[in-house]
């Protein structure tokens, strides 16, 4: 589930005041638990582009040195850009772009029902295992609401995928007949 706009998230993390690159990375990983952790290189590259576009500006430097010594602050233009992003409703699934779906299609094209079915079954087992893992995360007494809400997002999507995997297993034979009349 990709497509998160890291530049906008970084702008958001700067809205409360200027921060160094490493502080941004830490704040990102803390605020978005279970997201893919940001690499430092990615933070600095993104900050560089944001600075070039006038959305952030260097706000002082500790001693001398590399980019990690520079603190960045949101510019007025950056604030407008952030506000626009927050006000924009995301297009709800404009394309059916899922590797799961594409794999079944290709399996039916290049192989047969059994190939598609064994993929669906294996994928369902993997999804079920991950669903259980995340359910355990949520049940941990030490889990914060951030952890719970993040896990919930993944759980709801895995649950939806699982329903699709179930339904598709029930239809794959008919679907194959449609693909290879």
């Amino acid at each position, binding site marked *: 589930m990709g497509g998160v706009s890291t530049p906008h998230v970084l702008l958001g993390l700067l809205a409360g005041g200027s921060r160094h690159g490493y502080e941004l990375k830490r704040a990102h990983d803390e605020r978005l638990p279970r997201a893919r952790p940001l690499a430092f290189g990615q933070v600095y590259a993104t900050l560089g582009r944001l600075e070039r576009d006038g959305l952030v500006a260097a706000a002082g430097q500790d001693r001398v040195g590399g980019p990690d010594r520079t603190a960045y602050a949101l510019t007025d233009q950056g604030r407008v850009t952030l506000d626009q992003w927050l006000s924009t409703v995301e297009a709800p699934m404009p394309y059916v772009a899922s590797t799961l779906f594409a794999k079944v299609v290709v399996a039916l094209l290049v192989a047969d029902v059994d190939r598609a079915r064994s993929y669906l*079954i294996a994928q369902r087992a993997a*999804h079920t295992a991950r669903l259980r893992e995340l359910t355990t995360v949520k049940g941990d007494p030490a889990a914060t609401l951030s952890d719970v809400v993040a896990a919930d997002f993944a759980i*709801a999507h895995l649950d939806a995928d699982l*329903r699709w995997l179930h339904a598709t297993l029930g239809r794959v*034979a008919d679907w194959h007949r449609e693909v290879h009349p």
Partner: protein
Amino acid sequence: MTQLQARGVVRAYGPTPALRGVTLEVAEGEIVAVTGPSGCGKSTLLHCLAGILRPDVGEVTWRGHRIDTWSEAARSRLRRTEFGVLFQFGQLVAELTAAENVALPLLLAGTGRREARTAALTWLERFGVAEVADVRPGEMSGGQQQRCATARALVTEPRVLFADEPTGALDTLTGEQVLTQLVRLAREQRTAVVLVTHEPRIAAYADREIVLRDGLVDHTGLGLDVPLAGGAR
């Protein structure tokens, strides 16, 4: 340790086969999800295990005693003492308040009035519905009714709770709160749970999942790995 066991259970409704030879075990304190497509026999299995229905063939044993041959009175006593039952729609007694509903299983088991009421209030509190203690089901929301029904099913601290789609009528968040609390309390008092559901996210709370298909346990553990007859859409 195995507490509850079904061996070769077959059950039909007239000409309609519902279970075609189900064998399974439930250990002490274990939480088992029973899943599978609609009509595969989940509810029938639950009713057979709980001693509500009698199998046509096969046996159900509880702590080594065969219970399916017991009289209705004996099975009903077992359900009052060792088992708890919870359905999709709470099935509270309409004439009784929430507290009276929850106290009922204790009163039937011979607990004194005052003690039963105290326990009922504690259990209502645990499920976050203390405020409806003196309200009748007709004036409660579906979610409140289901929380009361869950409290009632656990108040006797049964050894096994049989729950058939217990969160089926609730919204996602309410369903989850009820289930989380149910699972937590069941684990605390080592109550085994047989949880019938068709929702993957609900089954994920269990220790183990048993998949039924056309009245049989699907031992692939995954179900649906053979073509559906007629390619049902």
